[in-house]
């Protein structure tokens, strides 16, 4: 294999330096995926192989017992697994769709229109990027209680529609990727704001909404017990699976199977959206 075909060629590059960097980054990549391969290996190990000394990364006799045990446990509980699954799907789909719809409408205005207050409002949104949401969970509870959202799926769906990161990325992307001239031309032709949004803005911001899909699904799919929902039949898949996996040593293999199942969704979405995400991120910079 020729080194030249792997790296970008430039004049001011020493060969030894390039090789050193390659070896280094491969070692880093190995470190990063090691825990994930460990989970994958454990998920297919029979109970007898989970505690060997020295431990083995991959199973000797691979088995799918952990997965079948997981499903029999899950369907044997008072609330069937399908219920948790449908809760998670509802949260993920509604939260993602709502966030993309509302934030793209708002981002369109911030990116392409000027109106009294638009600057200040956007500055507040940028400022809020620096506040970690964990810190506001208590007053958040008070707000939700006042609105009657506690113990409903809305307690997760509605707040996630208004998260600032998605709006910020969307606005930056629209600013650079939609030429003002197209919008002006459409306005001259008599198109109203809604038509411009639907026919021009949305079709031209596909990379941005793919990015928002990734970010939203990543968080929403993993939603566990967040303190806003108490009824068992309204709880999420991540919560239910973690309960099954948490029940002690003999469930360690099942816990690994749980992780593998939870990882499939965000991993496939990332593979599917990666090039779009990169396009969006190239406009993510913060000017002053």
């Amino acid at each position, binding site marked *: 294999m020729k080194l030249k*075909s*792997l790296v*970008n060629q430039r004049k*001011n*590059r*020493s060969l030894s330096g*390039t090789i050193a*960097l390659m070896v280094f*980054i491969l070692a880093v*990549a190995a470190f*990063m995926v090691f*825990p*994930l391969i*460990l989970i994958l290996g454990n998920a297919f190990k029979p109970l007898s192989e989970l505690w060997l*000394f*020295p*431990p083995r990364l991959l199973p000797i006799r691979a088995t799918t017992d952990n997965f079948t045990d997981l499903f029999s446990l899950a369907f044997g509980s008072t609330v069937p697994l399908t219920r948790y699954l449908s809760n998670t799907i509802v949260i993920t789909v509604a939260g993602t769709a709502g966030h993309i719809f509302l934030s793209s*409408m*708002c981002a369109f*205005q*911030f990116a392409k229109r000027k*109106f*009294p207050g638009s600057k200040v409002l956007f500055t507040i*949104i940028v400022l809020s*990027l*620096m*506040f*970690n*949401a964990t*810190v*506001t969970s208590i*007053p958040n509870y*008070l*707000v939700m209680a006042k609105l009657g959202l506690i113990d409903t799926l809305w307690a997760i769906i509605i*707040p996630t*529609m*208004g*998260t*600032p990161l998605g*709006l910020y990325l969307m606005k930056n992307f629209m600013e650079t990727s939609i030429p003002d001239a197209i919008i002006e031309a459409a306005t001259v032709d008599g198109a109203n*704001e809604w038509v411009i949004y639907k026919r021009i803005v949305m079709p031209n911001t596909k990379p941005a909404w793919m990015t928002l899909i990734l*970010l939203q699904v*990543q*968080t929403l799919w*993993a939603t566990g017990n967040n*303190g806003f929902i108490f009824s068992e039949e309204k709880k999420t898949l991540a919560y239910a699976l*973690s309960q099954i996996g948490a029940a002690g040593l003999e469930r*360690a293999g099942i816990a690994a199977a749980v*992780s593998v199942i939870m*990882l499939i969704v965000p*991993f496939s979405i*990332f593979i599917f959206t990666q090039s779009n*995400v*990169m*396009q969006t*991120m*190239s406009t*993510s*910079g*913060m000017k002053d």
Partner: protein
Amino acid sequence: MSKLKKKSIFKYATNYAFVLPYLTIFFLFTVLPVLISIFLSFTYYNVIETPVFNGLANYQRLFFSDDLFTKALSNTMVLALIIGPGGYVLSFGFAWILNEFKPKIRTFLTFFLYAPSLSGGAFAIWAIIYSGDRYGWLNSILLSLNIISEPIQWLTDTNYMLPCAAVSILWMSLGTSFLSFIAGFQTVDGSLYEAASVDGITNRWQELWYITIPSMLPQMMFGAVMSITASFGVGPQITALFGNPSTNYELYTVVHQLEDYGSTRFEMGYASAIATVLFVIMFVSNEVVKKLLAKVGH
């Protein structure tokens, strides 16, 4: 109201209609909670009775008579200093190395490095790696290399808890800022590099310092905000591995204390004062980083 003003509000009605749905939710669940925190931090509030104004009492208690807060604050600062700048430098450095590769390999490696961030729920796997018996991965590796003779209790021995927490949290720290950096390197104008090599830049380090970093400042600012936000929110990850409270409160952070007062003891006024202190710290860190970054490349 004058006719002109009426007309101008009408003129912008569509604009406001477009931003209103998003902004309503944003204000209700992001801005309002911050304001409520600040307000409640000057009160005594136990959720059942109405809040009673008590001035700076919460802050006095926090800074002068709560030893646990002092401990939590210093733990938080130490963790944030490791995870914030650490995660930031790693994200930038790895993105820079990836940029040397052709697109296909870069895509492949990006996936591997970003995979931990995608697998939030799988964080507990570190419990198996750090397991205190000889079946734990770290112990078994060190035992078989004869570096240690007895298994180490990584998750409860106060000598090792901080490094273990740092490694596992850094493992997940190649997040949004990492993706932003990778994309940012792509946007640097290639002709700048050509010109630079004519101007006498001879190695990749000079190229990085004189050309790449100055052209990537906007991305670097965005990445810094993301890193700071993540680093001060550390808490849930620690609970997952070390429990709450951790041995000797060694990894007890401000977020843990916030949870204790907010969700267990229902001392909302006091909890809000803790949250407000965190807001101030996050805000100040961001301003400092902004100032520092403005100096780079000038």
